[in-house]
């Protein structure tokens, strides 16, 4: 299991039966592959659908049926389409249970930077700001470091996507909860140690509840 798979599988465990979930572009999309098949999780794509199904078979793509990353997708039974206004009413109105998205930086207060590196990369925030503000639970799914530099900071330095909205951070090494007193390391991957996690994290971590991560080791 590579880093992305570990993260996706661990995030999937956070989802409950009946949840409405938005999975961001890239790594978060992989979470769909690990959802417990015994529960019903409804995936929203903010460009206008609930009930995101698997990728279409080659040759069966429909140019009018894409996800928010522009990839061809399918719609499950009981799914439906709606416009952008309705989509963001669902998002901003608190009707999304969980949103999962990547990060450039995330900090111990739960603030997130994910949309811009000034003068280098200016793609725009798309729907991320609304998702992070509106969803009941915000999960950041990211590699623990970027070229060995910590992504989990005491304070974000890049322009924010949202201030103090992140609830949980899942990396290939650790699961951290954002609480009022800072970040709590609640799980670490069996291939690492608490000490290593601390050394790769800029933000201080509370470690009293740290346990090994289950079910993500070489399965």
């Amino acid at each position: 299991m590579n880093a992305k798979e570990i993260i996706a599988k661990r995030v999937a465990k956070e989802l409950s039966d009946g949840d409405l979930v938005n999975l961001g572009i890239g790594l978060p999309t992989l979470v769909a592959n690990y959802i417990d098949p015994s529960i019903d999780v409804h995936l929203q794509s903010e460009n206008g659908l609930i009930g995101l199904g698997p990728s279409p078979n080659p040759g069966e793509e429909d140019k009018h049926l894409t996800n928010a990353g522009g990839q061809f997708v399918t719609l499950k039974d009981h799914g439906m389409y709606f416009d952008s206004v309705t989509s963001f009413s669902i998002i901003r109105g608190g009707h999304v249970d969980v949103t999962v998205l990547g990060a450039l930086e995330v900090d111990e207060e739960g603030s997130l930077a994910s949309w811009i590196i000034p003068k280098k990369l200016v793609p725009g925030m798309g729907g991320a700001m609304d998702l992070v503000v509106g969803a009941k639970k915000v999960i950041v799914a990211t590699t623990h470091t970027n070229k060995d530099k910590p992504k989990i900071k005491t304070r974000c330095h890049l322009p924010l996507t949202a201030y103090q909205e992140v609830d949980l951070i899942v990396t290939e090494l650790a699961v951290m909860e954002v609480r009022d007193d800072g970040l709590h390391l609640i799980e670490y991957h069996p291939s690492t140690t608490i000490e290593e996690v601390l050394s790769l994290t800029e933000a201080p971590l509370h470690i009293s509840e740290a346990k090994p991560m289950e079910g993500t080791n070489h399965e």
Partner: protein
Amino acid sequence: MKKRMDEKAFKALLKDGQSIMVGGFMTCGTPETLIDWVLESKVRDLTIICNDAGYPDRGVGKLITARRVTKLIASHIGLNPHAGEQMSQGDLAVELIPQGTLAEQIRAYGAGLGGILTPTGLKTVVEEGKQKITIKDQTYLLEMALGADLALIEVAACDALGNAVYAKTARNFNPVMATAAHTVVALTHQRVADIDPECVVTPHVFIDHIVLEEV
């Protein structure tokens, strides 16, 4: 179909300096033929309002590549490197707006509202220069209504009056843009006799002109 419009009449609507809303999400649901006609018309100094900057050779990206756009209001420009380049060079003013805020600003205009209060963008660069209003301990940004001279939308089918339905996720910004421009032109790929009155997405009263391009 009283509202039917041909290429020549469409081009006569266009003027330098216009603000044009264009439907579509990463070009899914963008009326490509109408964009092509805008390109052919040679109009310039356009303000484009669209979810994103399209691709260099698709959607509103074609207008950016051809340097017809001086201002772009969008939520995302990452798929069109020309947009970023022209922005860096100072040739294109880009206003990046959170996608949900953009949708609400356009909706507000179409619904006769002056604006809306949203929590999105608080304590980020989005709040710069905007009025903040606090209601019951929650602070919001005041975001103003956003309309345009022209809206170019793509619909899946129209009836004789212009009632419209959309195809799957090609719906996206098209219905709300149909409410928020002085003149609304719909590119449709099908004319149908009737639409179930429970399933009309855009009532005919929003659509001024219809370009029929059967596939």
